[in-house]
């Protein structure tokens, strides 16, 4: 039966989507904090935000890497 595979799809979808959204949201949040006037270390926040975006992008690329059969073999 394909229930297991269906469950797998559900799990993967949930995991990957939530990961991406959380990472990206954190990035957005940190960018916003970095933009605040009274913020003491905008540079740090900004670099943290960029780190979030970078990890998010890497996660996407990794996901695609997993899917392409060419790399899988």
């Amino acid at each position, binding site marked *: 039966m394909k229930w297991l595979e269906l469950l797998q799809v559900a799990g993967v*979808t949930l995991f990957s989507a939530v990961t991406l959204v959380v990472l990206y949201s954190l990035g957005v949040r940190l960018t916003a904090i970095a933009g605040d006037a009274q913020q003491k270390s905008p540079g740090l926040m900004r670099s943290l935000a960029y780190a979030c975006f970078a990890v998010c992008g890497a996660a996407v690329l990794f996901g695609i890497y997993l899917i392409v059969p060419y790399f899988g073999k």
Partner: protein
Amino acid sequence: MVALVIALALFFDFTNGFHDTANAMATPIATGAIKPKTAVALAAVLNLVGAFLSTEVAKTISGGLIREGSDGIHITPDIIFAGLMGAVLWNMVTWLKGLPSSSSHALFGGLIGAAVVGIGFHSINFETVLQKVILPAIFAPLIAGLVAYLCTRLAYALTSRHDPETGDKLTQKRGGFRTGQIFTSSLVALAHGTNDAQKTMGIITLVLIAAGTQAPGSGPQFWVIAACAFAIAIGTYAGGWRIIRTMGSGLTEVKPAQGFSAETSTASAILASSHLGFALSTTQVASGSVIGSGLGRKGTSVRWGTAGKIALGWLFTLPASAIVGALTALLVGTGVVGVIIAAVAGTAAVLFMFVVSRRSHVGHHNAVEVEEAGHAVRFRKKKKSRKTTPSKDVQR
């Protein structure tokens, strides 16, 4: 006959791309994240790339739905021709009427109908149909919707900012999501390529197997992949222009953060299922996500009437195209004359619908299918100022 079927299959691929550009690119264009021209070109290119990435879905279709070869049951190119005719005609009708329908289900319906009439009930592998088509069709939109709901909640929770002393709302600064949408919508386009372009590849492979030029159970050949990839890319590009023209005429209230969440869920759901060879409908998954993300925002409720209408459209697609496919199979079954009649009648019908579509006003109702899903969610709180979306000027 084989050449005719391949031509028809590529045309189906074209209509598929034509139909579905909106799914990927409607929201980023609407929120002003990308310029329309760029968006359409991007979608076309990514569809092309996506089509090359994975061929799992193609294998599902070419080897499974209909029992070919060894059991002594021979599906002929005629049957596939009839099935495709059913799919193409249903696709054109729904496109004309602006119904949110799934190109994939039209294809399966057409094929099943044609096979039942042309060969008989025993020719259909109902178990595979149930496992790889029906079940994903029910669950994929649900999964995508649920995930989109969670993601939207998370995105809003993580980015809501309050002043620590007074508790007042600060400026939320969620503009970053608009940039993010460029990437997520690109992913959706890519996912579309990995799932929808595959269906045509599967069909052409099926024809080649049926005609005896390819071994049963083998995957699509390279030229088939390339041809399908280009057909869907061209379709995407052509379809995009209609959307650009109609973008100014009102859109769902999708905020960048919502769009981002919805698209992420859509892309991951489609990519995950493509990888396992589930042939699901991108339209339905995208609709599920849009509804889910709409619910994730505070102060929303579902318009069950509209949602029901969408569901009804989904239910009808399979049987309706099955009937068209079956009728064509009957006609084709009468011999060469029947094939010619079917081909001529089909072409005439498609041309007729194309002419009608040219004359009728192209509104957002028949350009953006997911739009319908967006309407299924009612927003209680309406924002008066639309500062966050300075998209009105960009769209024109």
